[in-house]
């Protein structure tokens, strides 16, 4: 994996899948590569974020420096040295 370490902030309901951490660091040059990296250390967490075919979960939003990733390339959204990624469940359910 190449790229700089990027901070990925997790919602409270997913933290138990990252040993209780509120954030994890991951390496990569795109959002997809960050998720690949997360999958190596926290596989059950990664499965909550995208399915086995690599598609992001429909009701999970990924804000890359404040921009929802689907507006900037989805899993191909570029990330860099100072990027922050926030994972936020969307409004859904009842």
């Amino acid at each position, binding site marked *: 994996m190449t790229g700089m370490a990027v901070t990925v902030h997790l919602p409270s309901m997913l933290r138990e899948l990252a040993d209780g951490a509120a954030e994890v660091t991951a390496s990569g040059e795109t959002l997809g590569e960050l998720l690949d990296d997360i999958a190596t250390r926290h*596989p*059950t967490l990664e499965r*909550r*974020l995208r*399915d*086995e075919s690599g598609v992001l*979960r429909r*009701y*999970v939003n990924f804000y890359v420096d404040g921009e929802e990733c689907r507006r900037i390339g989805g899993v191909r959204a570029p990330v860099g040295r100072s990027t922050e990624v926030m994972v936020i469940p969307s409004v859904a359910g009842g």
Partner: protein
Amino acid sequence: MDVLLAIGTRKGLWLARSRDRREWDVTGPLLPLADVKAVAIDTRRGTPRLLAGALTSHFGPSMVISDDLGRTWSEPDDAPVAFPADTGEALEGVWQLVPGPDSEPEVVYAGVEPSALFRSTDGGRSFSLVRGLWEHPHRTEWFPGGGGKALHTVIPHPQDANRVLVGMSTGGVYQTSDGGGSWTPTNSGIRADFQPDEYPEFGQCVHKVAMDPGEPDRLFLQNHGDLYRSVNGGASWEPISDSLPGDFGFPVATHPHRPGVVYSFPISARTRSPEDGRCGVYRSEDSGDTWTGPGDGLPNEGYYSAVLRDALCTDDADPAGVYFGSRHGEVYASADEGDSWRLLTHHLPDVLCVRAAVVG
């Protein structure tokens, strides 16, 4: 005797335990917010293993296991049920978890959405896609029913590990006799009233199938309209619901020990609820020729809920217990094979499945 009843709902799992099947200790919600369509109690090991399919709207499907009767749950690091990359598919949910035959104590089957069968040889920690069914030429012609395109019924033959029956909505019944390599549709006589050819080779909207454990060639099938019976292992089917108070239904269950005893929760096709608002579980002791019901203790008016395909079951005690849960969150239990019923719990979310077994 200690009986465990697992209750999967639209928003979590509940467990109920009882020594006399009259007073129950109910705990939950476990797996909060998860849509639990499938639960299994695998009694083939010293401490029974619980397996549950859990789907959350945000975070997708998963499958979890408990080896301490529900106190703790774990999910394997590697996705237990996942489509291989070459299929291009992704798991949408686990609809059925079924232990294999006694001769294969580590085999567990999973029926999933989109319609596919998975098989585990390590007690349910990891599963492999059954390619023979996935690559069946009919697969592209199976389409979703109202609940999704799912393989919701798996019945391993109790004496022949190479024989397995599956049921799909839609698709119908398929069977293998070579361990999953090849599959044959076995729907002769089952009506599909939602298409011009009402008796097709396949494509029926089968809701549930149950096998008579003492006589495995005798099968019962709740279809999208009418209840059916086969006495030849599914080679042909005949309707048996003429005397039932309802021409529709979702579940069907068989007695664990007594051949020919079968349970139905008939409803009206027009309202998708019991005729005249009268809740009833009907029992036949002659393989569906005649029926008795509705059972003492059930609401006899104003009941307009339904019981879904996996929300009626028996336990393995003697006499057998019978259980059902409704879409409005009531669970009823009978400790006397369905003669009389008591409300076990209520005010739960929609009940999607129930499974019961003696666990101690």
